[in-house]
């Protein structure tokens, strides 16, 4: 059994893939149980990536070689589990185009192309949403410290605030969507789920729910994108197995009219 200090001594070499054999196995076992070492490893991986971050032009046909090797998708195939929607990760490698840009460029046609390729993705732009400025002020006074992105969204012209209630009319979550289709979870009173479950957010158009992403077992912050040509009538939240579901398997926990 490797001690914490022994493991800690090896983290630099491990981040460089320079540990092998029994030490490798023992260190990985330690990492499974030690959040402190994992956190340090994450930062060391960023350092390693910074060192290895020299871009070369890729050979011209390399992408097409990758594209032809993508497995054909079966109609009834479950997609792999989705990553959680989370606040933006810290990184020196934030692509400069990701923020502060011309939001108009998320166009229907761009995302339509993505949706066609994805077959399963139909993304949604909430159009007929009602502004609710009065609720914003309530919300802001009620909230200790909304993230800057959420605050910006709540002040954006044309934003829509959607309240999701349980059947008992109890407010469980609020979501804001700005006209570009970027959306954020503003507040959540959703109870925590077991670790093997997750909340999942859906846009409901007609009878067709379209996944907007996973919120995790204890939702606090989440960002998502709604865009495209269709109009949801409702946003709904269900509880699903941890990897998420293609279509809802659990009952609707909260729903809000768009």
């Amino acid at each position, binding site marked *: 059994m490797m001690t914490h200090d022994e493991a800690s*001594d090896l983290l*630099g*070499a491990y981040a*460089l*893939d*320079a*540990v*092998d054999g029994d030490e490798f196995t023992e260190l990985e076992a330690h990492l499974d149980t030690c959040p402190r070492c*994992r*956190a340090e490893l*994450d*930062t060391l991986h960023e*350092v*390693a990536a*910074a*060192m*290895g*971050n*020299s871009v*070369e032009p890729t050979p*011209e046909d*390399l*992408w097409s*070689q*990758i*594209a032809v090797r*993508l*497995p054909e998708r079966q109609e009834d195939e479950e*997609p*792999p*589990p*989705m*990553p*959680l*929607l*989370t606040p*933006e*990760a*810290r990184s*020196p*490698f934030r692509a400069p*185009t*990701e923020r502060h840009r*011309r939001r108009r*460029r*998320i166009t229907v*046609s*761009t995302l*339509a*192309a*993505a949706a*066609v*390729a*994805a077959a399963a*993705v139909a993304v949604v732009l909430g159009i007929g949403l009602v502004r609710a400025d009065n609720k914003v002020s309530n919300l802001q006074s009620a909230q200790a410290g909304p993230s800057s992105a959420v605050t910006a969204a709540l002040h954006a012209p044309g934003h829509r605030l959607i309240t999701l209630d349980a059947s008992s009319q109890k407010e469980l979550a609020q979501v804001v969507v700005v006209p570009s289709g970027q959306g954020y979870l503003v507040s959540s009173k959703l109870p925590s789920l077991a670790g093997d479950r997750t909340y999942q957010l859906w846009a409901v158009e007609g009878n067709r729910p379209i996944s907007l*992403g996973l919120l995790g077992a204890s939702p606090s912050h989440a*960002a*998502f*994108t709604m865009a495209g040509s269709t109009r949801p009538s409702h946003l709904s939240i269900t509880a699903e197995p941890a*990897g998420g579901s293609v279509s809802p398997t659990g009952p609707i926990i909260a729903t809000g009219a768009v």
Partner: protein
Amino acid sequence: MAENPGHPKEGAGPNRSHMPSIDEVSDAQLVTSIARYSEVALAEAYRRHGGAVYGLAKRVLNNPTDAEDVTQEVFLRLWNQPDRFDPVRGSLRSFLLAQAHGRAVDAVRSSSSRRAREARDAMRTAEADYDMQREVWDMAVADQVSHAMGELPEEERRAIELAYFDGCTYREVAQMLDQPEGTVKSRIRNGMRRMRAVLADAGVRGADA
């Protein structure tokens, strides 16, 4: 937008040789779309990070063909197992580079030319190795990294370079440099921590422990 020639017109299919522009979405959102089998999203991830993945693989492997293989594997794996990327633990770029590095190192270690390579690499001067700031994705980060590496004591920098760019284990580095294993282990650890501190001081986010 004039700078966006790859933007697909309505009704036009995605064009693989000019990646369709979905450059508005975050990396984490891209991966969510990849999980829903969006090939366009994978193409965008490749457009953003393919050059870095290929660049690192080529540097470690010293061989363009092997580097292409590694690059293909890394993006196919992102397609098949997108949930392995955890946006809380770091950026997509560093995740993909870590994947590329692991694969490249595996290939190096199984290569029959390994011994010859090691001997050649051992002869190389540190200065000849030290051209990472060339053709980087982000000159600001690269400047900070080269500055941070330049700040390291020579023996720490050498040990890190042999491990990272030549794919040696720290024990092999110890043999090559004729130093005790514990010393090399400490030098790598101290050097990495020093780099992290310099990068954090310089405001490179992600390095702030």
